[in-house]
């Protein structure tokens, strides 16, 4: 399954791009498993995702915990804790 990944703030800076399409390996079922999978894709991903606990995620623009199933989400966002307001 192909999904669109979008990155923000220092996650984006460290990975070196704002978005990409990837094919999800069949064993990646949850947000946490996706983060663990991405961290194996190279140094830049490792640098961005080295502390998985601080990474926040959204599935199709809705906040999602790490144990949440990705299901049929088309766009998955990964980013640091938010600092708006």
């Amino acid at each position, binding site marked *: 399954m192909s999904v669109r990944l979008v990155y923000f*703030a220092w996650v984006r800076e460290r990975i070196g791009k704002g978005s990409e399409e990837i094919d999800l390996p069949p064993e990646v079922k949850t947000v946490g498993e996706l983060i663990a999978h991405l961290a194996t894709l190279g140094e830049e991903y490792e640098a961005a995702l080295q502390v998985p606990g601080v990474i926040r995620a959204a599935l199709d*623009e809705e*906040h999602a915990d790490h144990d949440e199933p990705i299901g049929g989400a088309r766009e998955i966002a990964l980013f640091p804790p938010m*600092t*708006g307001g």
Partner: protein
Amino acid sequence: MTVAARMPDEAAHRVDVRIQAHDFDSAAEIAALTAGRADIGAVVTFTGLCRDEGGRLAALELEHYPGMAERAIRAIATEAVARFSLQGILAIHRHGKIAPGGNIVLVVAAAPHRQAAFDGAAFLMDYLKTDAPFWKKEHLKDGGTGEWVSAKDADDAAKARWTSAQ
């Protein structure tokens, strides 16, 4: 129910959310929210501004997740209206580069009485701080690019009071 019959009710609980790069005019927004109404007794506004952090900062740059930013703030604003029986709520959040002294965010809450208006505005700001997808990066006066601003535990604590108080 006809559209005409639905209008007053919709107008009576207005939720207006805008994500924009350009500045806002607080007075015009307050006026728009209260115009032609005689049932509003209290309006509370919150304006968040860019501080220079003791002269260190040249600007803050706000990055955001466009679609989700509006969706997340609209969800919080809609809950604030229901929870505090607000007559109207407005949230405007800017993105892009903002110089010290410049506006970042505006919240306006209207209600018959003051406690609801204060609570509605504070509730929206507390949730917006932790749940709206915006990130601030510092630009320094010495020309360098500084750090991404870290999330504060105090902001999580501020949000938590709205669930523990229930």
